[in-house]
């Protein structure tokens, strides 16, 4: 089932939460909505779910406009940020709820409900906890109950709002892997909201990066990282050094280096974003194009982050610690730098 969001806008009073947003999620895809808080990602998810109405625009699921359907026919699975489990019901009853509230002629028999719920609890590895209450579960377990409950209605699409937001780092990582595996198994078109880029990069087939009520770029994780479409994406996704530069004849002059850019018909001021690993270091030999001074060196496992003073700018370079030792560079030394790649955008 595909999800198509067409020209959706939404305001809360004077605040424009979404500005003419369009997005297509392919069948079976796992899409991440990534952005800082206030970027409109949760609003978009709630509109896709039908929990909120857009001011204009429409949402089609498998070609059908949801707003014209009763909620029980929509079959949209939704996992809430704080799970919203029913406190007064056991885990079993939580998962069974979606089946029990069906109209009589569509409702499965008690035996069938039990079979389905047991199957789902097996899927989320919670079989021994069926008779517990939500208050007796850990965060990760609650999260999985919420997921099983959403899957019980055999949703056409699955929507998750910050699914791992409330969990500690270790549990989050485990659940992420498990979730990826689960999605392969059940293969239901899914959209999840997150502000954690690592989560988006690891889980999603594609990422929609949002900022100030608009989608800046929709791309696979590696595409978004390697070829950011906008300044915002360059800054938001991973760290990038920012240098002012000049563009002329399709060439950007960045710190003495000439780099080919895709701004063919533009001449003037621009901004270059350079990833830390795209800066090379060498011993200064007196004939260097660009020179910098080492401010500090921080060891990060096998790599080292080298903070550089480059004229009036500060740069961060990432280099193998072995390579750094070979070069024999230490804090206070002058060194030569090379810039091999940059993403260049016109100055705003």
């Amino acid at each position, binding site marked *: 089932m595909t999800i198509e969001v067409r020209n959706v806008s939404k305001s809360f009073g004077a605040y424009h939460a979404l500005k003419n947003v369009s997005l297509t999620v392919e069948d079976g895809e796992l899409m991440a909505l990534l952005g800082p808080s206030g970027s409109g990602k949760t609003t978009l998810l709630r509109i896709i*779910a039908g*929990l909120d109405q857009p001011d204009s625009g429409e949402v089609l699921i498998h070609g059908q406009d949801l707003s014209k359907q009763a*909620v*029980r026919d929509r*079959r*949209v*699975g*939704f996992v*809430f940020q*704080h799970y*919203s*489990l*029913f*406190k*007064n019901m056991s885990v079993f009853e939580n998962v069974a*709820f*979606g089946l029990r*509230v*069906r109209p009589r002629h569509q409702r499965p028999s008690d035996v069938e409900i039990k079979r389905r719920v047991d199957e789902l609890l097996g899927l989320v590895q919670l079989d021994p906890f069926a008779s517990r*209450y939500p*208050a*007796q579960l850990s965060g990760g377990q609650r999260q999985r109950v919420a997921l099983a*409950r*959403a899957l*019980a*209605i055999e949703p056409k699409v699955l929507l998750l709002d910050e699914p791992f937001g409330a969990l500690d780092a270790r549990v989050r990582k485990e659940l992420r892997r498990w979730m990826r595996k689960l999605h392969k198994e059940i293969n239901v078109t899914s959209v999840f909201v997150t502000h954690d880029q690592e989560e988006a990069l690891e889980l999603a087939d594609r990422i929609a990066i949002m900022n100030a009520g608009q989608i800046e770029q929709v791309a696979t994780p590696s595409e978004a990282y390697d070829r950011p479409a906008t300044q915002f994406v360059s800054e938001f996704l991973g760290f990038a050094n920012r240098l002012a530069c000049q563009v002329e004849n399709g060439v950007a002059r960045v710190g003495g280096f000439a780099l080919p850019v895709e701004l063919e018909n533009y001449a003037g001021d621009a901004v270059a974003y350079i990833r830390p690993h795209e800066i090379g270091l060498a011993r200064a030999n007196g004939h260097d194009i660009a020179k910098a001074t080492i401010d500090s060196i921080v060891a990060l496992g096998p790599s080292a982050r080298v903070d550089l003073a480059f004229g009036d700018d500060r740069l961060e370079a990432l280099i193998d610690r072995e390579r750094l030792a070979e070069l024999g560079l230490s804090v206070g030394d002058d060194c030569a730098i090379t810039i091999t790649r940059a993403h260049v955008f016109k100055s705003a």
Partner: protein
Amino acid sequence: MSGDRRDRPALREPRWARWAIFVGGIGFLVVFVVLPLATVAVEALRKGFDVYRHSLSDPDTVSAIHMTLAVAAIAVPLNCVFGVAAAWAFGKFDFRGKTILVSLIDLPFSVSPVIAGMVFLLMFGLQGWFGSWLRDHHIKIVFALPGLVLATIFVTLPFVARELIPLMQEQGTDEEEAARMLGAGGFRIFWSITLPNIKWALLYGVLLCNARAMGEFGAVSVVSGHIRGLTNTLPLQVDILYNEYNMVGAFATASLLAGLALITLAAKSFLEWRYADQLALTRR
């Protein structure tokens, strides 16, 4: 709470201070709660149990008991429905003028009950706005059961709503939204999600509302007309007997009211004890 209090010097008060607080607290309770209740019992039984029983079987007193129970039986369920509806509206939805409405609910708390009684007298009494119309249609409101019920509803209006509004606001609409996404209809959501989440607060609200409905004096006094054996409720009957220097009768009737309060309290404690595990589980 982890650890023994005595392990934590910051919480250790000098012995005399602890004793002073303890004696002060207990003493206050004794003087203001236990002593009056005991007086009621002692005074009621001063002339022996037979006299006590006799004064309770007085036809006027029996009629007052019926009246009080009837008024509570009508007013409490109505206020229960209203309280839940109001709390549902205020707790789960946002709309213009909400704050004004919420403070209006408190009005009966801040207005003297006598005024409430006067208002109904002014509206439905013979000289009142609807007085002649009501007389022409042979409908009796003031100096009859309907008037007592109206006055009681007014006075006890905030109890259930006040108990529920903050709770429902705090709980928000998360669980309701989840139920809606799973395909539940409005009635089903209310019945299996909202109501179970507020049932304890609702119970407290109803108990408080009931206690006040049975004990209300001021507003009821104005609209009742004090017709013996007809429109007197228990508190009014106590007042009448007392003014006639019938001490045993007055205190015997008062002991009934106090008894009702104690039964209410016992019922609440019993339910809390009986469902302690459930309470602990559903409270996060």
